[in-house]
């Protein structure tokens, strides 16, 4: 049946039809929907793991047990899961194991723009790269065949434009292969030096076999046209190339990006006058071609940064500039902001007022760094807030005493904050850690996590109690505050900063976008009392603006949280019952 599907949804359909039985992932834009869509099939066991390393190890265990498995993550998630990846390349699999990694060229929702293909090359694991939804679907199915034939996990690399674009997919039925009974095999699966030494030659031999496969498999195809230009490309870049050249240029479309073929490329190059490589981010195909002795155009004209597009390709390869109208006006930018009623806002306002150095983390609350709050000093990677505040305070000692906090969300804390917290408790820095517990994984679109008490299907599940966990790690001082209560936030923050031992503050209130959180009526501005002092606007709430010298509330946005009311000394903001 033909239907319009998001790339990630098509990927999940491919997993389903291939008979995948176990899915474990950690959410991360743009990979999240693969797992969310897989969870809609009752025949697949699906879960959110606390982090990507756990997810990959769960998938490994499941394939070892003899059933096809999957784990999904974003590009930076693969760094977290790199440890199991590099060694399960050695052990290989029993039943097939497929990994999705979704890159984010253009950084729509990421902290860096790394190219995941490096991980495939370094771990010596095959990587496929679909260019639309139909391919995401078909490659997911084919990946299991490759995994089982070559005894290896297989990575499928998505990118934002493939993951989050809908295109037409022709689907089929689910076929579950027989379970491959687990057999004890210490030499294959116990990676201690004596065994790993014997597995490494297997990995090298496997790569040679995969190169031979890449030379004439259906994943890599040649489309012949005018031989004056030959373009080697993959992923969404292929679609941009087709948009510009249609059937006029020669194209070598690579669906398997690691390992890369050799004869196929040399043969293609020999048939065209000039070779151009079109690939986003790093010059991986290009360097491979150069190593084969070919002279090619690539990063000499194309950028290493950001996304490509049809106009860019027309300009760089054909010298054609796009024509369009321009408005002669400087328009104010519209950056993302914390939602109106976001529970994080009150806490960040308190941090700003107390002029502390804030070591931040990854999530919606990274928006605490945006003006006018500007209450975040550092954001590095998942969990880094807690580990780096310890280093910061150890380095400065007395000097930073009572002047720093770490802020981390509930999901990020479960992902990789706990180990940092253990380090603070163990090596004793006088650090204050704030867990922003909004009872959900927010930025990626509301996924459950170990602290919420629900699983991926929304059914009741195990629930980790943050207070007890912090106590168990050795923290005596653990306080819960409501971030809507500014006076209480301020009192608790001052108290914990002054304490002479490490402490945890849990700022707890569910995300305002959760369905069970019922908005209150919007606040009302009493115009006779408002003097236009703009005190309320220091919160940076998108529902408040100034109209004719007075505060104005956008009633379509305001959820009646009442935080702004606490900043108005004239009582000009009124809650409505």
């Amino acid at each position, binding site marked *: 049946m*033909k*239907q*319009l599907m*998001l790339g990630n949804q098509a990927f999940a359909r491919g997993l389903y039809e291939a008979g995948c039985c176990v899915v474990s992932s950690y959410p991360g*834009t*743009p990979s*999240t*929907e693969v797992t969310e869509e897989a969870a809609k099939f009752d025949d697949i066991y699906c879960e959110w793991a606390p982090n990507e390393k756990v997810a990959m190890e769960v998938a490994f265990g499941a394939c070892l047990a003899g059933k096809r498995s999957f784990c999904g993550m974003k590009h930076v998630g693969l760094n977290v899961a790199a440890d199991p990846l590099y060694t399960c390349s050695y052990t290989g699999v029993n039943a097939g194991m497929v990994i999705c990694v979704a890159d984010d060229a253009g950084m*729509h*929702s990421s902290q860096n723009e790394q190219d995941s293909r490096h991980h495939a090359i370094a771990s010596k694991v095959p990587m496929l790269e679909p260019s*639309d939804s139909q391919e995401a679907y078909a490659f997911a199915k084919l990946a299991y065949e490759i995994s089982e034939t070559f005894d290896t996990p297989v990575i499928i690399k998505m990118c934002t*434009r*493939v993951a*989050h*674009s*809908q*295109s*037409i997919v022709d689907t089929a039925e689910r076929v579950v292969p027989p379970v491959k009974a687990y057999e004890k095999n210490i030499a294959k699966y116990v990676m201690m030096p004596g065994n790993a030494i014997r597995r490494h030659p297997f990995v090298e031999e496997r790569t040679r076999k995969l190169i031979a496969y890449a030379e004439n498999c259906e994943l890599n195809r040649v489309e012949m046209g005018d031989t004056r230009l030959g373009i080697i490309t993959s992923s*969404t870049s292929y*679609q*941009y190339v*087709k*948009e510009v050249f249609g059937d006029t240029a020669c194209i070598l479309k690579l669906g398997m990006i690691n390992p890369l073929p050799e004869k196929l490329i040399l043969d293609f190059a020999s048939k065209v006058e000039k070779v151009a490589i079109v690939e986003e981010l790093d010059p991986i195909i290009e360097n491979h071609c150069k190593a084969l002795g070919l002279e090619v155009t690539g990063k000499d004209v194309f950028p290493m940064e950001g996304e490509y*597009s*049809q*106009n860019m390709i027309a300009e760089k390869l054909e010298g054609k500039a*796009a*024509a*369009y*109208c*321009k*408005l002669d*006006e400087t*328009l*104010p*930018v*519209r*950056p*993302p*902001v*914390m*939602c109106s009623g976001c529970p994080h806002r009150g806490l960040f306002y308190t941090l700003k007022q107390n002029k502390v150095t804030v070591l931040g983390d990854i999530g*919606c609350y990274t*928006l605490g760094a*945006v*003006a*006018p709050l500007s209450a975040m000093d550092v954001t590095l990677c998942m969990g880094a807030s807690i580990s780096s505040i310890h280093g910061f305070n150890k380095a400065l000692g007395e000097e930073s005493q009572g002047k720093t906090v770490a802020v981390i969300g509930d999901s990020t804390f479960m992902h990789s904050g706990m180990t940092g917290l253990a380090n603070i408790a163990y090596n004793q820095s006088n650090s204050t850690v704030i867990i922003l517990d909004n009872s959900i994984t927010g*930025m*990626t*679109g509301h996924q459950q996590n170990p602290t919420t008490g629900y699983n991926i299907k929304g059914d009741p599940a195990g629930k980790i109690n943050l207070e007890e966990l912090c106590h168990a790690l050795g923290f005596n001082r653990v306080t819960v505050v409501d971030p809507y209560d500014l006076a209480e936030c301020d009192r608790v923050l001052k108290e914990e900063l002054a304490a002479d031992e490490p402490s945890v503050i849990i700022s707890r209130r569910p995300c305002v976008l959760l369905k069970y959180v019922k908005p209150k009526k919007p606040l009302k501005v009493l115009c006779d009392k408002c003097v236009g002092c*703009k005190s309320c*606007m220091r919160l*940076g709430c*998108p529902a*408040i*603006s*100034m109209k004719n010298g007075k505060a104005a509330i*956008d009633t*379509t946005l305001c959820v009646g949280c009442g935080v702004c009311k606490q900043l108005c000394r004239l009582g000009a903001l009124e809650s409505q019952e």
Partner: protein
Amino acid sequence: MNTKNIMIVGVGGQGSLLASKLLGYLLLQEGYDVKVSEVHGMSQRGGSVVTYVRFGEKVYSPIIDKGEADFIVSFEELEAARYVEYLKKDGRIVTNTQQIDPMPVITGAAEYPTDLISKIEKLGIAVDAMDCLSLAEEAGSAKAVNIVLMGRLSKYFDIAPEKWDQALEACVPAKFLELNRKAFALGREA
């Protein structure tokens, strides 16, 4: 037929995903090849958001580039102006006249530009501007701005209203169907 391009632009949270879902469903039923490209994640949090809808005999690129859009459907005035460069020479803008202050305007670092629609029209661009928020409220919910705009857009397509209605039925939850039908009709007739 050459590929046609519709850009849907607005502020994160305004409901552009439903609009693109509706268009995708409709155009697929009409027998076209269709690609719809969305933005998820951080940009959705009140930022400027763009969705691309492309249809024709065979669609390759999932995105619309500068100078390519046949239509820009905008949920907000400033956002209509922001993407003018993406419009084709003879393209058309269908926009809501609602103004939502971005953060730099809220903090006083910038001002909301004035007379944007007439400035766009001075470039020779056809602009169909209307107060979709009032019409959505008239239909029963401020959230129906997206469907009011779809109703308006439908005027420029040679697709029977029944087909649009079938798409609405397929894409909107049953309990909101009547409200959205009303919003669609108000947009189309306004």
